[in-house]
């Protein structure tokens, strides 16, 4: 469905992504693992249109996303949950959701269905987003992205800095979304999360896709983890 084809991305004159290629199937959860600075966030920014590849192409079915102006990309049905959440902190919870609704393709009661997934938010609609707890902020960032009824959800380290119970909750929602047919690219530092929910895992190393594999393969050969992420598997 989504094809990332040999993209090369630069910050100024510094090349950050080199010939990055992968694809994403409908309803699939693809996890990007890699060390700090490997280029995971840059991959997501390229998909959402914030970064334009110098060469290469990103396409969604037959739409060439790289040719669209950045603000048209989310309208193709791509929801983005940025690293560090990037909520509109001065705006209310409701207004953050409204921003998500802006780019949706169809009308209907999306907002109500999203709030059913995150009942806590319903009690806080008037509250300033910046005053929510870390876990609630992550839920709001996810809810905001879901408001545009994405076919593809980009999640950048959604469990960063959360308590275990919140991590479980977020991962559970990722699973629920898969059942609803939403494909997800999940950037994770926590290997356990990746093993738990991913259909496929892509290791990112120095701006390249080093290897793509299934979680089972990784469980069988934990040395790979040490090689790409520099950690061992716990549990």
């Amino acid at each position, binding site marked *: 469905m989504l094809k990332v084809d040999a993209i090369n991305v630069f910050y100024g004159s510094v090349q950050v992504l080199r010939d990055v290629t992968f694809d994403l199937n409908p309803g699939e959860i693809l996890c990007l693992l890699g060390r700090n600075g490997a280029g995971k966030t840059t991959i997501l920014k390229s998909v959402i249109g914030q970064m334009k590849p110098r060469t290469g192409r990103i396409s969604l079915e037959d739409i060439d996303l790289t040719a669209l102006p950045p*603000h048209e990309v989310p309208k193709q049905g791509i929801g983005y949950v940025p690293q560090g959440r990037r909520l*509109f902190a001065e705006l209310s919870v409701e207004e953050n959701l409204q921003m998500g609704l802006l780019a949706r393709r169809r009308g209907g009661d999306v907002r109500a269905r999203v709030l059913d997934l995150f009942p806590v938010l319903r009690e806080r609609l008037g509250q300033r987003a910046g005053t929510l707890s870390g876990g609630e902020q992550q839920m709001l960032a996810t809810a905001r992205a879901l408001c545009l009824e994405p076919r593809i959800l980009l999640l950048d380290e959604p469990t960063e800095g959360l308590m275990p119970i919140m991590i479980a909750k977020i991962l559970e929602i990722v699973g629920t979304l898969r059942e609803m047919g939403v494909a997800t690219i999940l950037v994770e530092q926590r290997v356990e999360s990746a093993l738990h929910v991913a259909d496929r895992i892509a290791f990112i190393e120095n701006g390249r896709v080093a290897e793509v594999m299934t979680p089972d393969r990784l469980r069988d050969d934990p040395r790979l983890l040490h090689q790409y992420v520099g950690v061992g598997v716990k549990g």
Partner: protein
Amino acid sequence: MEGTVTAFVLALTALGLSLVFGVMRIVNVAHGEFFMLGAVLAWGFTALIPELPFWGFMLALLAAPVCVAAIAVIADALVLRRLNYEPEATIVATIGLLYILQQSVLTLYGPNAQPVVAPISFRVVLPWFGYSGYKLVVIGAAALLLIGVWYAITRTKFGLVMRATQFDRETAQAFGVPVKLVYAAVFALGAALAAIAGVLVVPLQQAHYLMGLDPLLLSFIVVIIGGLDSLKGTVVAAFIIGLSDGIISMFFSPTLAKIIATLAVALVLVWRPQGLFGARAR
């Protein structure tokens, strides 16, 4: 009374400057020229139909801000966008814009101040003093506009998009906001507000190609005192500055009024750099 008129007109002008700074993060040094253009165009439009001063003025009130907004859109597309809205570069560029607008008006309109007749003239006589009814009209119109802008910013979809863009333009774009379009619209809106203020003021003040300087300085003072991105702060500070400027000018001297205003800016910068109502630096 004089001070109240000044305060309302200043609030409109400063609001334009503050919106542009708040959303686009650029300091528009040419803002006063949009005010001047409003006044000069008001003279031009009323001169088109001198036999109907009321309708001429109404025409000016609608058409002048539209023309000025169009000029702003062109300036945005030709200059600001190409500079990628870099804060320093745009200061220099808007200084250039200031001179271009000023000199064009000097060339086309001449160095003389031109009067515009007030659309209505009646005197309101209160027990202890009387004054021109037009000033009441200015106050009413400015107040309506301020309320209108406040409503648009806090209650409409465009206002929401504007505030989101102000807060985080990258993320806003990732949710489908056409940031360039929003910038052009905000720049046009800021210019239109200054132009309307210019139109409203011209029957009291005469149109002149150098008249943009004072509103620019006062708007800066207001925006600094009120806080750089606070709507409420801008309006409150406009009242403090407008009223005190009027009162001190009347009883002492206009120079003293400016000195005090400048002192107030210095004090605010020292004690509350974020302005009286501004949010703390993020």
